């Protein structure tokens, strides 16, 4: 056993180091993301936000963490004890396990020795593994909701589950185009395929795929336009109604980990990963180059995370039938169309940038839905006016 570890050590320690980095950063990230979210929310609502603890309120996150750890463990009498305790753990575990094949920094081609910014480099099925793991993350929520033995929790869990299964399909379809372009499921190779110029970023020639991917990944993370599983007006707290203290925090740590992971995926798949025109060339092993690329990647991810947080205050929540309709009637057909177009581009050797035209489908869809909504609204108003004899618009 000792000899085996000794023999494996040169390849083992970078893996362990990468795991340590992930394990250390996920909780800190979760705490500080809540802080940033509160600050952003405050600025949007013309408030100051948390500003008492430490300079600029920066220690607020730490104070929150300490408070949550010291909270009383409230366990309701009517829960199924085993699953009630296991569910938050499953939630966080699946969220963190997905980070195994996700490069959180530049990965040089020679990754055999030395520290690298990924736990398992060169995994041939990279994206597929992330999908496989993240498809398990519904277990945490659905078991938590069921084990709470509470109608609201169960409804939250069922909603989450239905939403999750539905949005996994467009998510997979949107990625197929990217995989087709890179010819590999390996994330490092997909990033490499976008390295030549800024116009090679998948975002600039598969904008439709990007829109589908981003929408679906928002739905997978239960973020605001899609946060029906925990909508307060209808379900008290949704699946986490019966959870408090550290168990509650585990669920939310998982959610923030999901947000970060899907931001990383967005950047790696559609925004060229650690490449930036003028700043970075081919990946070399030098420390300065690695740090620069790390900075580029983290900056891009930060921008996506901030965008997701801003979306929270820009969009209202869906109705459940609208949510399902969007996935099954909107995103899945669009995903199929996108896949077909990408395949056609490669089969007939057309210039791939013609595909950028597909972005017009989004404004067209917007126009159609606005027109239909307006027509429906008009007919309702006319109906009400006819029935009651009042100007029904305000009713």
């Amino acid at each position, binding site marked *: 056993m000792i000899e085996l570890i000794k023999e494996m050590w040169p390849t083992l320690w970078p893996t362990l180091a990468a795991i340590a980095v992930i394990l250390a950063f996920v909780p800190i990230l979760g705490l500080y993301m809540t802080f940033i979210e509160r600050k952003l929310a405050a600025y949007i609502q013309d408030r100051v936000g948390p500003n008492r603890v430490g300079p600029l309120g920066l220690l607020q996150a730490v104070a929150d963490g300490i408070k949550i750890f010291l909270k009383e463990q409230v366990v309701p009498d009517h829960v199924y004890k085993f699953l009630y305790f296991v569910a938050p753990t499953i939630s966080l575990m699946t969220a963190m396990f997905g980070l195994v094949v996700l490069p959180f920094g530049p990965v040089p081609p020679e990754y055999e020795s030395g520290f690298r910014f990924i736990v398992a480099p*060169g995994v041939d099925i990279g994206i597929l593994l992330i999908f496989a793991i993240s*498809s*398990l993350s519904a277990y945490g929520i659905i078991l938590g909701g069921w084990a709470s033995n509470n109608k609201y929790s*169960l409804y939250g869990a*069922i909603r989450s589950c239905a939403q999750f299964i539905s949005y996994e399909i467009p998510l997979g379809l949107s990625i197929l185009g990217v995989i087709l372009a890179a*010819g590999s499921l390996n994330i490092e190779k997909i990033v490499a395929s976008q*390295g030549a110029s800024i116009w090679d970023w998948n975002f600039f020639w598969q904008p439709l795929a990007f829109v589908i991917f981003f929408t679906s990944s928002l739905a997978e993370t239960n973020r605001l336009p899609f946060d029906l599983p925990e909508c307060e007006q209808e379900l008290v707290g949704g699946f986490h109604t019966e959870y408090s203290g550290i168990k509650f925090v585990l669920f939310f740590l998982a959610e923030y980990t999901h947000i970060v992971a899907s931001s990383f995926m967005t950047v790696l798949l559609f925004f060229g990963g650690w490449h930036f025109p003028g700043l970075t060339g081919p*990946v070399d092993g030098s420390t300065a180059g690695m740090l620069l690329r790390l900075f580029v990647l983290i900056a891009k991810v930060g921008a996506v995370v901030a965008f997701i947080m801003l979306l929270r205050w820009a969009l209202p929540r869906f109705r459940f039938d609208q949510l399902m309709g969007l996935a099954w009637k909107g995103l899945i057909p669009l995903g199929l169309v996108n896949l077909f177009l990408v395949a056609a581009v490669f089969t007939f050797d057309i210039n791939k940038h013609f595909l950028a035209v597909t972005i017009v489908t989004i404004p067209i869809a917007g126009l159609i839905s606005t027109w239909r909504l307006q027509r429906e609204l008009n007919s309702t108003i006319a109906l009400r006016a006819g029935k009651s004899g009042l100007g029904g618009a305000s009713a």
Partner: protein
Amino acid sequence: MQAIGSYLSIPFAQSDPIETVSQLSGSWNLSMLIPILLGAAGYLLLQHGIVKGKQYLFMGVIAAVASVISASLFIPPAFENYILFLFCALATGGAFGFLTARDPVYAALGFATAVLSISGVMFMQSAMFVAAANMIVYAGAIIIIFLFVLMFAQQTNLRTYDVKLTYPVVAAPIGVIMLGTLVYCLTAEGAFPLSRPDATRAYSEASPPENLMTDEGNAAVKKLKTIEHTGSYKSVSPSTTSGLGRSLYTDYLLAVALAGTILTVAAVGAIALATKTTGEDV
């Protein structure tokens, strides 16, 4: 095993899966049936014990543990074999749980455990794509839908006839015969025809990747070849996924097309059945 193994530089990893099977060939002896029979006995006792009482349950657990220990004696001593065996044991445990759990939700979870452990076994055999697909399709979609239904149709007090299987005494010998035959086929000399991919066929998996790169009509592959500016990213195993895809769509094209057709027909049929209205307007 190759993929993870060569990355962690485990000696066993370099060997071909088919060679591993051929190493097993000829190691057959009758004592290999002992763990299978013990396992069957353990299953019957556990099944009986859940309905009847504690003492059977205890004996069942003892028989199951004895089965696991006796099976572990046949494993060649190597680090990765123990991990493999752990996954197998977990899968068997999940299956036990699935069959014996009183609550349908726990039964579904046992099933999920079994499926995930089998994925683990596949990972250990470097069948990465199949493992991930297994996780997505079974653990990620199908069992979640089971749970979904079970949670809505929640049953409270179960009767014994819900827990008791109809013919466990018939099922267990059938299982023993199947497993015994499988073990015999894998270990007896000459019983298992070792076949390799046909190297003479143009598109077979056995043909080297260099040939595939120059094939016409492979825009994606050609494109990949032109991406040289960021250096070539090493893959720990020679592109198993693309090899699998190539093999599926050339060697097994008919089977894939037939399976796809059957699935499409099934989907159409399901939709047709589901939207059948009972006189009302939809």
